[in-house]
């Protein structure tokens, strides 16, 4: 099918689904990664990547009679996002196959909704691509080794949509927000690049410099 005339323009402006998750964790982290192209691999991201590599290596398989698509490229023009889904199971039968996204996550379920939003973003992409309603998906945490079902209700859809918009605005403006030191910083792989404590309310450098030059 030929792309619509405006599709190419739209494609240029898509933001990665992963940016939504980063944004919900911390807007500055999102900017450091997606605007400033900084990233630091710490234990957590290495482990996360290895997990993904394991998942990626699978070919479409059939488990419990369900066909699973692995590492499926996805996008939504309505939300302006694109990315990959780790695994999309096809539920239902015959002509009424409903995609069911499943995302693998390190650790255990977290209080912020970043993982749910990421999954919901995938669902919205799948709805647009498959032309059907996707009402449910699952997060699979390795600790405990368990599936958590996620309902894509209106609240989650709204949050996902709002987050996508905020990320787009931030990336378009190209401005990194100031850090706000918070307890997430301890787990943030970009803490050294961010320097939240020193740069939250930065000192007057001029005064600092002149004082330090003396003595």
């Amino acid at each position, binding site marked *: 099918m030929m792309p619509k005339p405006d599709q190419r323009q739209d494609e240029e402006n898509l933001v990665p689904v992963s940016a939504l998750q980063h944004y919900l964790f911390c807007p500055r982290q999102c900017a450091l990664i997606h605007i400033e192209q900084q990233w630091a691999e710490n234990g957590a991201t290495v482990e996360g990547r290895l997990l993904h590599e394991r998942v990626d290596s699978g070919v479409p398989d059939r488990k419990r009679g369900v066909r699973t698509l692995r590492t499926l490229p996805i996008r939504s023009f309505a939300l302006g996002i694109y990315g990959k889904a780790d695994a999309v199971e096809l539920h239902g039968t015959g002509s009424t196959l409903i995609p069911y996204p499943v995302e693998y996550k390190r650790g255990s379920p977290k209080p912020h909704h970043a993982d749910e939003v990421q999954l919901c973003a995938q669902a919205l992409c799948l709805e647009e691509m498959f032309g059907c309603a996707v009402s449910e998906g699952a997060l699979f945490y390795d600790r405990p080794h368990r599936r958590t079902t996620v309902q894509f209700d209106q609240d989650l859809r709204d949050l996902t949509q709002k987050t996508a918009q905020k990320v787009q605005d931030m990336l378009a403006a190209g401005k990194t927000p100031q850090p706000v030191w918070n307890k997430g910083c301890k787990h943030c792989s970009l803490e050294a*690049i961010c320097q939240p404590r020193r740069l939250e309310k930065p000192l007057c450098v001029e005064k600092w410099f002149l004082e330090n030059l003396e003595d």
Partner: protein
Amino acid sequence: MRKHLNTIYVTTEDAWLRKDGANIVVEVEGKERGRAPLHLLEGIMCFGRIGASPALLAACAEAGIAFSYLSPIGRFLARVEGPRSGNVLLRRAQYRVADDNTRSVLIARYIVAAKVANQRTVIRRVLRDYGASSPEASQKALQAAEAWLTDTTRRIVKVTDMDSLRGIEGEAARVYFSVFNLFIRSEDPAFQFGGRSRRPPLDRVNALLSFLYALLGHDCRSALESVGLDPQVGFLHADRPGRTSLALDLMEEFRPVLADRLALNLINRAQVRAADFTCHEGGGITLHDDARKTVLTAWQERKKQEIRHPFLGETMTFGLVAHMQALLLSRYLRGELDAYPAFIWK
């Protein structure tokens, strides 16, 4: 805290580097000589004729590990760059400042002030450590230089045009290097310093300094690249094709602290000796192979030493300081800081 990551220096001619899973493997004549996990590395520097597999180069580019080729004496030849190279918005900000003389001076004068303050600190340490045992004339000369440099830092922070700044910087370098011989404790006349010479270095001290400056320059360049700045566009050093002016700018703060002090330690503790150098026809002098290894090991050790970062107030290794300064410079260029906090060593 960001971890201090290691740099691998490969100096064995005809070594072959390859990737094995998540490791780098060093082979010589088909035999494995060493192996290290890539995620612990910050850089790989190859001196001389050394080969590497495309898979390793790609992995380094992807992980942001600086992979460079240098000539045996440390002259930079080439580096491997991946698809991720900096951020255009930051670079534009950098170019805008570089094009604006008034704004460039605001950065450059702190860099120069910090460099001169650090030169002064080198002299203070010499006075503290050996002052009492030096001849009176030497003490006087050191004290005079110290006082002059201290005074000069105060002048520098008020300078508003680049030409005067470069002038004062040159003067300070002359004063500092005029007492450099007094820092040297070696009795061996081979280690007489005859004033700064670079192309080629005309005495052993200069050969050692040049080699260390090359290492430092390389680290500064990688630090700038890793935060997304363009190492070629400087503020103090004017653009010149092929010159990494911003890396030269950033180096200024560290020369006395990292390179000069290390050169003096190596000489004063007799870790390098007169015979470790080759004198070429025409007067140029370079370091021998084995001595290069000694210097590289000492450089690695120096980078592992911990200091308290003056501005960030955090303890970190010396090896990380260039990276942090590059970061602070980028934060200033982005408007998050009101000035660039150049590195003042105490």
